[in-house]
């Protein structure tokens, strides 16, 4: 199998000015560009925060009959029960999905490490844990499954919001919220497809150190999507 020398030969197949790979430079430029994309989406959400003329609202109860908002349901005394809409954002569920996405990032770094170390012999007396850390398939699957779980949470979140009376057409909050989180979800979806493609390669011919760069680039994209979620979780969900 590939040795260090083969690794080097692959790296220097084409001369580059910086000694770095083209694709890695391109993905970082792409990530820089994505900063502006998500900046525009997040800014719009925040600009429109509190500007919707009707509910439901992200953090407050809303009485449809009187079009008034309050921090608690009790404060809307006199409002018929079927006219009261709950605060839309579901912090416990989203906290769980945030945790899932953070863990997927951990799985992703382990997948990359496993690919990079594939050819190194296991240390003497290696246990099950050491063996697991060498399995790129395990960690790629783990990342993809955690990513898909995040998407499952998002699907659940979206459908329950629709049941609670918020669609993309309802108000400015609905429009900006679904577009922002939808864009993020689309990025996660693309990431899952990318991971599955890597897995297909892994099953077909095995990913080794010579493929580390391929996995690294996918990982950078994946972590960036995670980082965007870190910003969204705080700015959109937690800050009221």
């Amino acid at each position, binding site marked *: 199998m590939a040795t260090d020398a083969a690794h080097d030969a692959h790296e220097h197949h084409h001369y580059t000015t*910086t000694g*770095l790979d083209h694709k*890695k*430079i391109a993905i*970082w*430029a792409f*990530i*820089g*560009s994505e*900063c*502006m994309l998500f*900046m525009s989406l*997040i*800014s719009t959400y*925040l*600009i429109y*925060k509190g500007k919707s003329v009707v509910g439901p609202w992200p953090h407050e109860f809303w009485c449809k009959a009187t079009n008034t908002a309050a921090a608690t349901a009790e404060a809307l005394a006199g409002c018929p029960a079927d006219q009261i809409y709950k605060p839309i954002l579901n*912090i416990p569920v989203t*906290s769980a999905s*945030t*945790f899932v996405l*953070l*863990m997927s*990032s*951990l799985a*992703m*770094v*382990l997948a990359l*490490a496993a690919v*990079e170390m594939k050819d190194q012999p296991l240390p003497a007396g290696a246990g099950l844990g050491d063996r697991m*850390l060498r399995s790129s398939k395990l960690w790629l699957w783990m990342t993809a499954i955690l990513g898909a779980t995040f998407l499952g949470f998002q699907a659940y979140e979206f459908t329950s919001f629709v049941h609670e009376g918020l669609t993309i057409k309802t108000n400015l909050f609905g429009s900006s919220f679904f577009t922002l989180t939808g864009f993020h979800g689309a990025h996660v979806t693309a990431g899952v497809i990318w991971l599955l493609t890597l897995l297909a390669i892994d099953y077909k011919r095995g990913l080794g150190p010579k493929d*580390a760069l391929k996995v690294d680039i996918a*990982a*950078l994209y994946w*972590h*960036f999507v*995670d*980082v965007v979620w*870190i*910003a969204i*979780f*705080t*700015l959109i969900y*937690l*800050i*009221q």
Partner: protein
Amino acid sequence: MSSNSAHSEEAHEHPTWSTYKWIALWLTLITVVEVWAYYIPAFVASNYFVPALLIMSAVKFTVVVMYYMHLKYDHALFRKLFVGPLIIAIATFFALMFVFRKMFQ
């Protein structure tokens, strides 16, 4: 964590499982604190809530970028390619918040 910074020249040198594990733990911990803070009405009402949350999320952001995206260990070029656009994005964000009277006025 610090032991790894010695290898900053090597693009493929990176932290190990134990570093990753600790980072994941810290990220989880900060997230727990963030959500916890959300459920303390007195704190939410105070002037410290927003800055505290922003700082915590900035720390998470930085940790993921520096360690998971190994910007800390990688070629300086990548840092420039990321930080430059990030600065413009953050500056534009604040400028937009300013013109829409969401801040400073």
